[in-house]
């Protein structure tokens, strides 16, 4: 995956770039809005990571300019402004995801990977399959092997989101945002409880567990 990090804080940018390279991605850096815009127009990237407050040209204006030029590369906005209306403003300007600072790298990585695969992803499929687990998005039926599984509506949406991003790490915040549409910190790890309920319904009694906890990051549904 090829990334462009537009961030004026040298240390932060270096740190992210290094971390992405360690997990096998290619990361370019731009220290200001103008250079970032030029690079993003010039080269092909899978995801752009854009800081909101940048010298020369602010982050939202970079995104606006890119979208105006018809460049639809997914954009993740980084911002020290973490409030509700700031996020809404960022997404309205053409951003695809919004991550308030400070963030953990695992959160950033998980979100960037989801963004990168979104275009070629399984959004259009009507049936998601992971190993012998099957989820029908139209009839809302779930089967594991030969057994029907009964889920609450919210559990269904939780599983649907996890299966849509099968093989990818999904963080707790991502689940809270995408499954519940809540954008705040629920203090207690309520998500963990929901996951363990779901796990008991789809994994209990089967030899091969599918729903895995990724330490320090989140959860993942995968075959092996």
């Amino acid at each position: 995956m090829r990334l462009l990090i537009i961030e004026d804080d040298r240390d932060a940018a270096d740190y992210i770039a290094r971390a992405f390279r360690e997990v096998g991605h290619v990361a370019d850096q731009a220290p200001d809005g103008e250079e970032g815009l030029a690079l993003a127009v010039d080269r092909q990237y899978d995801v752009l990571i854009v800081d909101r407050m940048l010298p020369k040209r602010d982050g939202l204006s970079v995104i606006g300019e890119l979208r105006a030029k018809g460049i639809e590369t997914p954009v993740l906005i980084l911002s020290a402004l973490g409030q509700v209306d700031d996020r809404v403003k960022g997404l309205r300007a053409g951003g695809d995801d919004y991550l308030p600072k400070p963030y953990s790298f695992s959160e950033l990585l998980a979100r960037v990977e989801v963004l990168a695969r979104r275009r070629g992803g399984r959004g259009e499929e009507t049936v998601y399959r992971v190993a012998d687990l099957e989820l029908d998005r139209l009839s809302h039926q779930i089967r594991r092997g030969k057994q029907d599984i009964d889920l609450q509506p919210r559990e269904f949406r939780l599983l649907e989101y996890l299966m849509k991003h099968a093989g990818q790490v999904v963080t707790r915040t991502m689940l809270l945002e995408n499954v519940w549409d809540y954008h705040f910190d629920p203090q207690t790890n309520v998500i963990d409880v929901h996951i363990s309920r779901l796990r008991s319904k789809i994994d209990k009694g089967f030899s091969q567990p599918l729903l895995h906890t990724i330490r320090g990051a989140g959860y993942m549904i995968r075959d092996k």
Partner: protein
Amino acid sequence: MTNDLVTTGARPAAEHSPPAGWLRGGRARLKALIWPRLSALGKLSNTTAFKLTLVYLTVFALFAACLLAYFAWNTRRLITEQITRTVDAEITGLSEQYNQGGIRRLVFIIDSRARRPGSSLYLVATPTGDGLAGNVGLLGEGVLEQTGWTETVYRRLDDPEGTEHHALVRVFQLPSGFRLLVGRDLDERERLYDVILGAGQWSIALVIVLGLAGGFFVARRVLQRVDAMTETSRTIMAGDLSGRLPTAGSDDELDRLAVNLNVMLERIEALMRGFKEVSDNIAHDLKTPLTRLRNRAEEALRTGKGESDYRAALESTIEESDELIRTFNALLMIARAESGQASTPMTEFDAAEIARGVGELYDPLADDKGLTLRIEAGDNLAARGNRELVTQALANLVDNAIKYARPHKLDASGTPADVLVEARREGDHIALSVSDRGPGIASADRGRAVQRFVRLEQSRSEPGSGLGLSLASAVAHLHGGELRLEDNGPGLKATLVLPRGGPQLPQPSE
């Protein structure tokens, strides 16, 4: 000043001729003495009230002057008219007498009339200009030669002092060439005219003097109040935020302004107090975990034996810093909610949906702790506000309730749940409440419980930042509502009461 002069005079001879510096000093002292008065006068005359008075005064004086001038002129005209009419009538009568009885009769009549006190002026003259009868001694040059109306000086024959007066006269030529002059003295007219003009001038002068005095008085009163307000605002600016502007209770515009400013000051004071509390509490409650964080890192460096030790230390460091970030975010959120609604987007939302959503999110958590959570949400609970903030506030309350609730023995008939999440209407408000069966909060502590970081003794053992209730309270205030804490007997019932129409602008307390 006189004191200074005396002491100067008593100085030794060498100092008798005062140096130039003394003169300057004296002048400066004089200036110092007079200047404050002058500048006070300048300040007074610089007030809006005084300037307005001046404008009104000028306009009023001009009007009065015009009115008086018109009045005087008209009076004069009327008197002239009356004189003309009298003289005309007399001339008609006299010429008739002449026609009937000739010059003899005319002379006779005029003689008798001229002797009456306060009579008109009469003169009968021959065609050559010699007087035959009448009471006029001296006349202006060439008056008799010209028939018709003339204003002239004259002297009365019967006037012992022989002073000159003014008169309006008419010269009439009789058929035989004799000339008849009849006139009236004009002094009365002039006197009346002068009296009116004089009275007018005086009254205008009086108006100006009184007006100026009134203007000064009004301006001084206004200025005194404004000065008092300025004085108070200065002490407030100097840092004493508890000061309030004086109000006279008269409900005039200055009073209303003062009342409004006081409301504003109250708000500022509350904000500043909040700000101070935040910084105090940040200092107190963030320093503790920061110190812990630092100590742990230091200890790992000092005693760490291998990779696994370091890893464990780093992991706990990250955990600890995540907790710090969480606390910090909550603090920011509260500060933002408290700073007012200007930047918070408000939309229509359904309180029932929020109650159901939050209840459902926390239900498994309650279940894990062996608690039952029940949701009771009515219909038609639309309200205006920030959906996310209200959701977050309710989530905090539910989170708290689950933390402190104790499992309650259920009998067969289904007694109240351990945690009850309710949404209902209360008149113009909607109420979102969370009741638990935990230890509750003693009524004496309830006020304190919504303050930041306050964690009542019994709750110290539970994890959390202690910001849940204060955040809920801040969100309620942002919406123009309140957070109500009640006894649930046993337990706590926390209710977010929000106006359905959203926040209203703060009204000055009447």
